[in-house]
């Protein structure tokens, strides 16, 4: 039984390289967002989610955005929206978290095409723009349903109010996706090469 769980964990979390990079990605997302807390819609978590899916894959597709949000949500609501009522927080948070999960899964679909190449970074960066818009529309559903619907505001009005924030968000994606993407694809493939070189050297020594 224990070995079955261990095998499942190993399959889901990958090797030590993947685990180290997954934790590093969560750290970058959390520290990045904390540093930019007062900048609406500058979202390192978005970039971390898409990179988790496209570079690491496996369970990291879900773990990275979930872990980052679990750490950040209490801090954000406590510092940016002190005093907000719990039901408003819960509803909006559901849409934010599922939005990031969707971004991670979308990144996962790109994984076979991602390598440490300019073309891959360009692909990730380009796809991040429509994904950003889709994410914003999805979270607007939550904002409208839990915050504005009862006031008679139409969903169209919510979308209109979202426009400047989506501009910030696209700017954030264009900065963080290529930046994080380059760093993590480099680390991912460089560490793989270092490991392969080490294994080859060991085999050569043994023979």
């Amino acid at each position: 039984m224990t070995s079955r769980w261990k095998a499942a964990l190993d399959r889901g979390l990958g090797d030590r390289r993947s685990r180290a990079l997954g934790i590093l990605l969560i750290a970058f997302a959390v520290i990045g967002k904390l540093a930019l807390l007062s900048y609406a819609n500058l979202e390192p978590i978005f970039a971390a989610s898409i990179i988790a899916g496209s570079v690491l894959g496996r369970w990291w597709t879900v773990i990275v955005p979930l872990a980052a949000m679990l750490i950040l949500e209490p801090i954000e609501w406590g510092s940016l929206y002190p005093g907000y009522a719990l039901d408003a927080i819960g509803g909006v948070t559901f849409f934010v978290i599922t939005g990031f999960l969707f971004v991670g899964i979308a990144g996962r679909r790109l994984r076979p095409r991602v390598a440490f190449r300019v073309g891959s970074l360009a692909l990730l960066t380009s796809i991040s723009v429509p994904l950003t818009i889709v994410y914003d529309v999805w979270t607007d559903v939550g904002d409208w349903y839990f915050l504005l619907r009862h006031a008679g505001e139409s969903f169209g009005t919510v979308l209109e109010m979202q426009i400047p924030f989506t501009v910030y968000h696209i700017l954030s994606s264009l900065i963080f996706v290529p930046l994080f993407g380059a760093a993590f694809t480099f680390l991912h493939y460089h560490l793989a090469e270092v490991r392969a070189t080490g294994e080859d050297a060991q085999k050569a020594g043994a023979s």
Partner: protein
Amino acid sequence: MALSLSERQKAILFAAVLIPAIGGLYATTQLIQPAPVQATTVDFVRLDIGGDGWSIHYGPTNTTNNTAFGLLLEASKALSFSVRWSNWTWPAGVLVTAINGAANGLDDRFWQYWVNGRCGNVAADREAIRSGDEVLWNFTVITCG
């Protein structure tokens, strides 16, 4: 014959497209920032706060806190009630989240402000008030778009 680019050339091309895009978007974000309000003295302004079964009224003879938020903060100090808010850099401004213990989201109500009956549509610290203006902070369902 297909054009074949080296990785370096692709990187240069990518940067040549990405950097102007980032620059253009950044310029757009700066254009849409609300302008800060210069402090000046205003006379006979009035502040009314409508809470959950309570109200507060404040009317200084003159003040240099000539924004909807500045006047609210001045009143909170003078009349000893609490105000909670968060500071934003993008978009620049404050968001009032609770006054006198009544927090945004409670029963789907939020703090909104009006100046002379007109809904505020910028952050309260970016809404300038003039002599004789009446500022209303009301805890109600969202009516300002």
